[in-house]
């Protein structure tokens, strides 16, 4: 069968691959080239070697953005997944109104982007203002503000994924364990979680990459204030393009470094969780 499919590649993969070339591969390779160049627009690039990389690494705001993003990614990874998992567990029990709750929790997923940051800024500042505080004055508020915003947006989606995973676990497994005398905790850690590994893989992968790529919400909620302290990688790169004259190449170099880091993390994470998956 493989052979007969193989000949049909023009139908099956050509359209996607052609677009993939235009939309990703070509700009990506060009981007790598530009990271070694001095340029204002893509038309006037001149090669400068590793200079941009040197500047990128010696930029303190960049290293800070990296650690800030890492901490942020870890915190949201744990929070989103634990909460979504817990909510999923609860909403698969016999509770009245589970359908409504699922809908409500899923809703924030449907709206998003830059505007959401403005809305939350309004809310946070409205609350903090009562105590004569403000979001942009304190990096801690900024950090937790971002965390709350992202949790609000993503918990619903992950919850649905987990609910589906839970429903796919055969009831007989749990019953058998109960007969063997396993308590609720043992059942959770010995049966439910191992059986849920595929869902956990996909959810952790999505949350981590989302956190690392976060841009819109960061820009509109804190825009990095105060003093770059809540600036994440993507925003830092974006600012580098416009912050100084002639720093376009540095921004591009930062993007390449950033890309390598994210790929490494993504791959390690995929490998780590995939190994734990139980063959069904």
């Amino acid at each position, binding site marked *: 069968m*493989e052979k007969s499919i193989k000949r049909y590649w023009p139908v*099956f993969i050509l359209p996607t691959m052609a677009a993939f070339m235009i939309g990703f591969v070509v700009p990506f390779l060009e981007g790598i080239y530009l990271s070694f160049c001095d340029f204002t627009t893509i038309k006037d690039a001149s090669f400068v070697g590793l200079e941009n990389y040197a500047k990128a690494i010696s930029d303190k705001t960049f290293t800070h953005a990296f650690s800030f993003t890492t901490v942020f990614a870890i915190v949201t990874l744990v929070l989103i997944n634990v909460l979504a998992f817990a909510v999923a567990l609860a909403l698969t029990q016999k509770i009245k109104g589970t359908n409504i709750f699922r809908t409500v929790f899923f809703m924030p997923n449907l709206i998003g982007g830059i505007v959401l940051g403005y809305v939350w800024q309004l809310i946070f500042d409205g609350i903090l203002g009562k105590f004569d505080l403000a979001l942009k004055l304190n990096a801690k508020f900024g950090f937790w503000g971002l965390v709350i915003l992202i949790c609000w947006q993503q918990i619903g989606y992950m919850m649905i994924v987990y609910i589906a995973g839970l429903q796919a676990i055969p009831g007989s497994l749990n019953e058998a364990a109960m007969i063997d005398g396993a308590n609720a905790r043992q059942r959770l850690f010995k049966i439910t979680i191992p059986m849920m590994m595929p869902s956990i893989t996909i959810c952790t992968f999505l949350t981590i990459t989302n956190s690392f790529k976060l841009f819109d919400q960061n820009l509109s909620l804190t825009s990095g204030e105060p003093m770059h302290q809540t600036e994440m990688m993507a925003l830092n790169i974006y600012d580098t393009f416009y912050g100084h004259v002639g720093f376009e190449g540095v921004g591009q170099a930062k993007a390449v470094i950033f890309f390598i880091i*994210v790929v490494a993390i993504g791959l390690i994470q995929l490998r780590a969780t995939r190994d734990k998956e139980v063959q069904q």
Partner: protein
Amino acid sequence: MKNKKSGIFATLFFTVISILFVAPIFVVLMNSFKRKAFISLSPFSMPDEKSYAGLENYVTSITKYEFVKAVGWTLFITVLSVIVILVCCSMCAWYITRVKNKLTKLIYLLCVFSMVIPFQMVMFTLSGTADSLHLNTPWGIVIVYLGFGAGLAVFMFCGFVKSIPIEIEEAAMIDGCNPIKTFFSVVLPIMKPTYISVGILEAMWIWNDFLLPYLVLDIKKFKTISIVVQYMKGSYGRVDMGAIMACLIMAIIPVIVFYLSCQKYIIKGVAAGAVKG
């Protein structure tokens, strides 16, 4: 007995959480009826006589900022892109899972890579490439979206295809179906839930995207909702918050209507797609 009690408690608990969850949307709705000066002054108070603006914000955003046109283009781009992404990527994913060689493996890896690429890395080069190929129209941008969104879609489809028993396809082929017919009559129906799952992810992304359409589209002619909203933040701190709120409400409504009308499939889809992933 004990169970019932804790059930009521849980319902109460989740009701409170749900209210907190929709509160931000409610804040937006409330503020969309206020005059802009009052929005940042007192974001949580209901519009009163002094601050009530009636439908003014809605009228402004429709007449002054051509909001309806923006909704049209956004809808057009989103629907078309999602359809193209779903069809092309599912075919591609099926092919690369069923045909095993170095090339297909490479494609798969490239797709995973592309998922984690920050858009900032390719924004200028992408807008340059798209421009030189004249993809700066709502039709052309579909190709850009197919290319840039292929990673996630192919990745998720691949996960699902792996779980489809190959025997069904083999049976179809033996019955004389060519691969194209096999795909559309056998594989596609099985993958329906995954289509929904991937479709939502891609649709939400495209619907809310700002920078990509802003840089790629011919901004003289086409604006999407996100672009229009960004224009409401004028320079020098002039922010038409009222119009932004009104726009947000109007942008959410079609999404919510769509969601409520097919929520059964969506929830099923998200679930099915992801579990097998």
